[in-house]
């Protein structure tokens, strides 16, 4: 055994050093935070944001910010997101200050109400402007809360997903069904909160736990690959002789995993096995062999292991993955046809601020560009109102990306100037089908001209400065296209470059195979990135992405194989087990 000092790997075992903050917004967010505090979270700073001062005062988190102190005078928003947004804007300085010290921020929020839906997009925007790596855990309201709240939630989710590096949605309807169909309301909510807080904790642990075989942020992104729509998550911890088996069993039992059956469909699965000093190689091997039984042959297993003294005698298994909705996979297929660009595009979470992403020049896109000149902003109108900024008149020339903050918008002339400088003739910018998880605002990039407006930094667009070489790019810089995009990325990248290194350095100790579909994650990654931009191929693709997006909002568990003649019936779920699957097979596992 070769001995080495772990710190030489340049990892960050101490999360406070790395600056992790968990922000709970609104009532639901505060509940999750309280749950985390209850379970003893010394790993991260907890920050509660709320408009209702009474709710805020009962929160147990270490930091609290009251939103809209003067606007609402300590009352709630009464379910009005506009008030929530204004309240957040009022506290913008405080929020900015609180977020600034962190490198990584988890936001948990229950969408649908006033504070959550209104303030969360603002907070996310601020966080991104401060250059943090942002993961959002959003809870969608119960359907019985009504269409209106659902609409508010969807609008908010759409806004949030523009800013966040990763969005994981939990559907309350689904959670209720999965966890405790017959138990009391309090237990049901507690269980839902617990699942969310566990996911946050596990995500944190996975990334920060000292690793022998380390898992980095890039692995996490790869596992949550955004054009796959549904997030799977399982966590198990066990002690005793048979702990490796039991921990895995527990992890697979998590309702989001549906006993591990859904793993079969996943393209990449992140598995971390961690334990105290007593953990043996044999145990790790045992777990991994078991996991291998559950995943398909094509699945990439991102494996990590590490020891943590705090775990004592227990062993934990964390499984994070996501699976494609049918629409997402067909979309991927469509993309695969466009050879040059496909790999980059398929990565919903890949850093979009890497200018290279927009670069590939694709004949298909050229053909498509003029055809799809804008008039159809993809989101169907019934679903959510197009942002006011999506001005249709501008359509034929530019479709400015929808941005909340009006100040971000530069006058149109400037866009035109940029384009003119690049001597680009083709004028059409169209909003785009985007990978489901991140409906990032997107521009139809015509091969020649390009500027992809990515969000908070849109203002950088106006600066036609010469691009400074930023991060070591995976692709060599080529055309002016590239350069323009870089200009956009400039501000952001410079803020985030530290983080990039951090993550990059974590890669050294990693052992894994790379999925050919995920090359953009290779090499140093800029984690605080934007959702990538995909040029729209055609209307059909737009539809597909729309479908995928809608599906994304549900954490669905599809009926899976193994149920025989009951494959098409409602699953009979008792204690998280699908009773239609032969008992014999379930017990054997």
């Amino acid at each position, binding site marked *: 055994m070769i001995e080495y000092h772990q710190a030489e790997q340049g990892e960050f075992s101490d999360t406070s050093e790395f600056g992790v903050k968990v922000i709970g917004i609104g009532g639901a967010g505060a509940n999750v935070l309280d749950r985390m505090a209850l379970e003893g979270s010394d790993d991260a700073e907890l920050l509660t944001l709320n408009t209702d001062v009474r709710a805020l005062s009962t929160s147990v988190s270490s930091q609290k910010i009251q939103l809209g102190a003067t606007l609402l005078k300590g009352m709630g928003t009464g379910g009005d997101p506009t008030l929530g947004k204004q309240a957040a804007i009022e506290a913008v300085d405080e929020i900015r200050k609180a977020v600034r010290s962190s490198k990584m921020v988890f936001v948990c929020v229950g969408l649908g109400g006033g504070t959550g839906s209104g303030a969360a997009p603002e907070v996310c925007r601020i966080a991104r402007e401060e250059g943090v790596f942002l993961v959002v855990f959003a809870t969608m309201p119960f359907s019985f809360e009504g269409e209106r709240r659902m609409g508010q939630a969807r609008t908010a989710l759409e806004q949030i997903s523009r800013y966040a590096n990763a969005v994981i949605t939990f559907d309350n309807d689904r959670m209720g069904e999965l966890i405790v169909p017959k138990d009391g309301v309090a237990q049901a909510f507690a269980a839902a909160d617990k699942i969310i807080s566990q996911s946050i904790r596990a995500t944190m642990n996975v990334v920060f736990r000292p690793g022998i075989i380390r898992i980095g942020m890039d692995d996490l992104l790869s596992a949550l690959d955004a054009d796959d729509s549904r997030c799977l998550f399982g966590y198990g911890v066990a002690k005793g002789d048979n702990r490796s088996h039991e921990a895995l069993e527990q992890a697979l039992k998590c309702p989001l995993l549906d006993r591990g059956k859904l793993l079969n469909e996943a393209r990449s699965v992140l598995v971390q096995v961690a334990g105290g000093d007593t953990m043996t190689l044999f145990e790790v091997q045992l777990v991994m062999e078991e996991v291998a039984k559950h995943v398909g042959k094509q699945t990439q297993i991102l494996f990590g292991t590490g020891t943590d003294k705090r775990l004592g005698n227990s062993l934990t298994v964390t499984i994070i993955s996501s699976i494609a909705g049918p629409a997402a996979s067909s979309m991927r297929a469509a993309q695969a046809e466009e050879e040059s660009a496909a790999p980059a595009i398929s990565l919903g979470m890949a850093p979009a601020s890497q200018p290279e992403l927009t670069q590939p020049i694709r004949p298909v896109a050229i053909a498509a560009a003029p055809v799809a000149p804008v008039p159809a902003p993809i989101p169907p109108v019934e679903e959510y109102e197009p942002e006011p900024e999506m001005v249709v008149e501008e359509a034929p020339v530019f479709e400015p990306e929808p941005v909340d903050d009006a100040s971000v918008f530069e006058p149109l002339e400037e866009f035109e100037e940029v384009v003119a400088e690049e001597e680009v003739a083709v004028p059409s910018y169209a909003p785009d089908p985007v990978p489901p998880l991140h409906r990032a605002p997107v521009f139809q990039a015509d091969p020649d001209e390009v500027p992809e407006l990515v969000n908070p930094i849109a203002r950088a667009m106006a600066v036609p400065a010469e691009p400074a070489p930023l991060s070591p790019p995976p692709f060599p810089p080529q055309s002016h296209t590239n350069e323009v995009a870089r200009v956009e990325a400039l501000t952001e990248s410079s803020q985030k470059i530290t983080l990039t290194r951090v993550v990059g350095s974590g890669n050294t100790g990693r052992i894994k195979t790379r999925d050919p579909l995920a090359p953009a994650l290779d090499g140093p990654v800029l984690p605080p990135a934007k959702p990538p931009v995909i040029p729209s191929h055609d209307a059909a693709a737009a539809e597909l992405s729309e479908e995928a997006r809608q599906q994304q909002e549900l954490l669905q568990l599809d009926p899976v194989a193994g149920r*025989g003649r*009951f494959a098409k*019936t*409602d699953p*009979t779920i008792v204690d998280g087990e699908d*009773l*239609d699957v*032969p*008992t014999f097979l379930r017990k054997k596992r």
Partner: protein
Amino acid sequence: MAASNIYVGLEIGTSKVCMVVGEVRGDGAIKILGVGQHPSAGVRKGEIVDPETVQTCLHDALMRAEERSNVEVNTVFLAVTGSHVQSLNNRGTIRVADEQMEITPEDLEEVKKIARDVPLPKENGYIHSIIQHYYVDGQDKIPNPVGMLGQKLEADYHIIHGVKTRIQNAIKCVREVPLEVEDIVFSPVAAAQVVLNREAKNEGALLIDIGGGTTDYICFIDGAVVASGCVPIGGDHITNDIALVLKIPLARAEKLKVNHGSASLRGMIDVDITVEGESGKKVSQELLNQIMNARVTELLSVVHEPLAKAGYLSRLGKGIFLTGGSSLMKGIADLTEEIFGIPVQKSGSAAMSGPSTLFENPQYATPVGLIRYAQLLDEQKPKRGAFSKLGEKLEKIFGGGK
């Protein structure tokens, strides 16, 4: 009411559609006139998934029943079940007006209304609300408080409810045949009418009806229903398990289950059984029994858990009655006894006149029970005055049996 009445019970089960035509004579005796049945299709877990197919089966069963009984069937009592059916107990309390000393039937109405007024999910509707006991000024278990003196009247009700639309779908399917549905009855409520006698209900008994698609149960203590429910797992699941684990077709799995399988692992001799068919595949008896044992154990545990939690099991003086087609399985009584720790007997319905083999077969407990149910329902009608409402018919059946 001296004239005899003819009732028809219809059960659209997962494995068979069964229609029983019965005559209730003036003296209360029941004679079964004819039975029509047909293997069913388009039913999963006790609920209709393919109405057209079901109607074909139903029509066939109807033809046979009419032919054999020589009766033209117009209205039926329909047994319903399904995972959506749930039950709960609720107590209602009223204060009797001061000037009025005696408890009147109107008071019973009132208290019943209050007891029934439980918040159900908005898509659910009542199937049954069954009186358990009345309490007058704290004195408990009074079967009929009308005429008693008292100020506080309480009533415990057992309420069975289910998703309205899912029940309506079953009714719609039958109506399109066309047959009129006189009433719907939760399957185990019907089966209990013939499987459990009054003594068993009073001393405490649990009826478990393991059918093709569902397992329904109903628990009586002190003559009143205290729990009932439906687990959407039945014989089909066992067959499905065997087919999936052994990788053989469902039809062969079914044969294997019926001819060779046992739910118990005790006293088993491990031999190889040859699966029918050209492949001549051999299957170990041990494996087969293990598959069935695992499933049935789990199924019974799901039934066991809520009953044990509520503390009912220790009060079942008469033990457990197994019925339904899957109760014909070997070893199931042993296994049930092992899990519940209470004596178990397999049982069909009690004696009536008619083709006798029918009653002994536990497969027919529910449809025959429907006839009995209809009879009891009818017996109450003349007694009740203008105040009676249709929904109350069950009071006597369950509450009065003391």
